[in-house]
């Protein structure tokens, strides 16, 4: 049992880290918005999904125009990412403007409900558009990097490396932005105390809009990478993934950027480990279907002993 476990462990780790990277970048969107508004933006999973659809639409468009073969792959990927990030960023800003800003002084539960409403609207709008031509909302896109690398017993898709690289770049970029730039400082100030920040001549509305833009752009970019990794998307991918990413954010201490990254990776690896090894380890009593139970048990355990999440206290500043 143990040798078999050790044998498959590298593969489990690679798959887990990939899934974790997706969770982590999506979790950033939750944690940034929560840090600044104390609002759980439940529409964020749908922004991720919209990003996946926008990216896939661009690639399918380029492919049917016949340009895909002529352009360098990396350029196409960067272009797709840039467009998808821009559009989902604007989408996030728009949602904030329409659904959250008018409710900013309402009781906490009210914007939560409007967030759920927005997420239903996005799901069905995307489903409507996706179904328009083919009558089928499950869309299979173009995969740019489909090759597989065989390293001994390990199989890695080239796209996995791209997902990991892009996720790390985005996270490092965000971290730098928040800590080293004027806008980042303004964000941290607003997160700490909106009213005082306003007194210090910070335009709070613009900072919040910027936060939504960045969080949503990250979510959208992850959507594109996700579509590339798994090939097939539908308008409902945002729901489960959003829930898991939110969990990751809570695990790391919601409101804390580094905590969200860490929580994402932990959740991804735990989940992959549980679904691959739970069956063999328990002699088939608990199968892969218990992977979520396993992952959430860990979450409950963490929250029992450290209710503020893993990084909640260690780092004081919140964004």
């Amino acid at each position, binding site marked *: 049992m143990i040798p*078999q476990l050790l*044998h*498959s462990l590298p*593969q*489990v780790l690679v*798959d887990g880290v990939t*899934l974790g990277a997706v969770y982590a970048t999506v979790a950033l969107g939750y944690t940034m918005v929560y840090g600044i508004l104390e609002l759980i933006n439940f529409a964020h999973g749908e922004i991720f999904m919209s990003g996946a659809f926008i990216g896939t639409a661009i690639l399918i468009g380029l492919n049917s125009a016949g340009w895909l073969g002529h352009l360098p792959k990396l350029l196409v990927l960067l272009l797709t990412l840039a467009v998808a990030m821009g559009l989902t960023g604007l989408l996030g800003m728009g949602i904030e403007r329409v659904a959250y800003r008018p409710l900013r002084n309402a009781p906490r539960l009210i914007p939560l409900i409007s967030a759920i409403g927005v997420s239903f609207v996005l799901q069905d709008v995307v489903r409507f558009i996706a179904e328009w031509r083919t009558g*089928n909302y*499950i869309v*299979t896109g173009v995969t740019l990097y489909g090759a*597989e690398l*065989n390293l001994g017993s390990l*199989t890695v*898709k080239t796209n996995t490396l791209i997902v990991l690289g892009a996720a790390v770049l985005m996270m490092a970029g965000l971290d730098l932005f928040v800590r080293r730039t004027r806008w980042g400082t303004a964000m941290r100030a607003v997160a700490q105390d909106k009213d005082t920040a306003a007194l210090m001549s910070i335009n709070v509305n613009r900072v919040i809009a910027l936060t939504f833009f960045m969080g949503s752009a990250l979510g959208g970019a992850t959507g594109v990478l*996700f579509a590339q990794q*798994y*090939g*097939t*998307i*539908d308008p*409902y*991918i945002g*729901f*489960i993934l959003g829930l898991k990413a939110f969990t990751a954010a809570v695990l790391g201490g919601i409101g804390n950027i580094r905590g969200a990254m860490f929580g994402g990776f932990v959740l991804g690896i735990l*989940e*992959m*480990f*549980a*679904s*691959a*090894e739970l*069956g*063999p380890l328990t002699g*088939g009593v608990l*199968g*892969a*279907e218990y*992977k*979520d139970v396993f992952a959430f048990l860990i979450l409950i355990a963490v929250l029992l002993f450290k209710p503020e999440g893993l990084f909640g206290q260690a780092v004081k500043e919140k964004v």
Partner: protein
Amino acid sequence: MKKHRVLSWVAVTSAVMLLSACGAGGGGGNTASSGGGGGGGGNVIKIATQSPLSGGSATLGEAIKLGAQLAVEDKQEEFKKLGFTLQLVPYDDQADPKKGVANAQMIASDQDILGVVGHLNSGVAIPSSEVYEKYAIPMVSPANTATQVTDRGLKTVNRICARDDFQGPAGAQFAVQTLGAKKIFVIQDKTAYGQGLADAFKDAAQKLGAQIVGYEGITVGEKDFNGVLNNAKAANPDLIYFGGLYAEGGLIVKQAREKGLNIPILGGDGLDSSTMVQIAGADIANTYYTSVAADVTKTDSGKQWADRYQQKFGKPVESYSAYGYDSAQVLLKGIENAIQANGGKKPTREQVRDAVRAIQDFQGIVTKVGFDDKGDNKFANVYVYKFDGQKYPGTQVAAMSKQS
């Protein structure tokens, strides 16, 4: 004339009452003779179809209707010789149980309708057949696979396609006996359909001597199945069975191939979709699925029939066209038998109902039909299809019958 109709109506009703009294008394036997006194009146015989002619599954519903229409037109001459005008009355059940039941009431009120071909959806067939049972209108279903359709033990309900609970065992037969699988890894999607199918498969495969090296569940809606597949790879199986639908099935096939698991992957009719091929792309090769619908063009006579259908309606045959045709044929055969047993007079619905159930050996265009005491077809096969390259549907590679 009016008086005569009223009289005959009274006669029919009294016959109905007499018969139901008979039935309650447990007198099966030759009901045709006991109902001999009633019957008369009118020389029009109608059969109805009930299938969705509008909405999302209209293509399949239309296929059932057109199949039945062809059967009626083929038989019109024969019925004319017997002195009857044969007509088809199509109803649109809109794949909606409420509409199906409302239509069933209308069918019941038209005394010339002696039987129904339908439905497409088991969810519609089940409530509608309660109405048919009440008015003794025999139903022959071309497409309802849910076990509950016949398990309620209604006298009017028959089907010519296989039952859902035969798909798993048939898949197991194919996997173990045809593909020679010894170590099988089973994945299911934790839904009633997927788990039921996978469990039935697992039990049957174990009985046939295969070893189940893993049995895992996945969550509908997720896209990453690498965890389960890592587990599968470690168990080193020579076949993967998947109980679930195409959205997850396609991804499992794709991700399994990416992991280098190039073994056969088998599933149920949940994989029977063109989207399955789109999702899995070129990785679809070596993937099989079972289905209750046969490819009618496999035989020469079936091919001729399909050409005739295409010529007449200008549409290609769908999977259930031939089943619509055969259902109507079986029903008409039952009516013919009932007419003969009734001395050439128009039979009652009860007589037709019992004559349809009594059919034991009817060779249709796509399947042989013989009903057991529940109304299931003893000769219903489950067919195995293989995806050959990136096209849908797959090619039929085997037919699994219950006898073997």
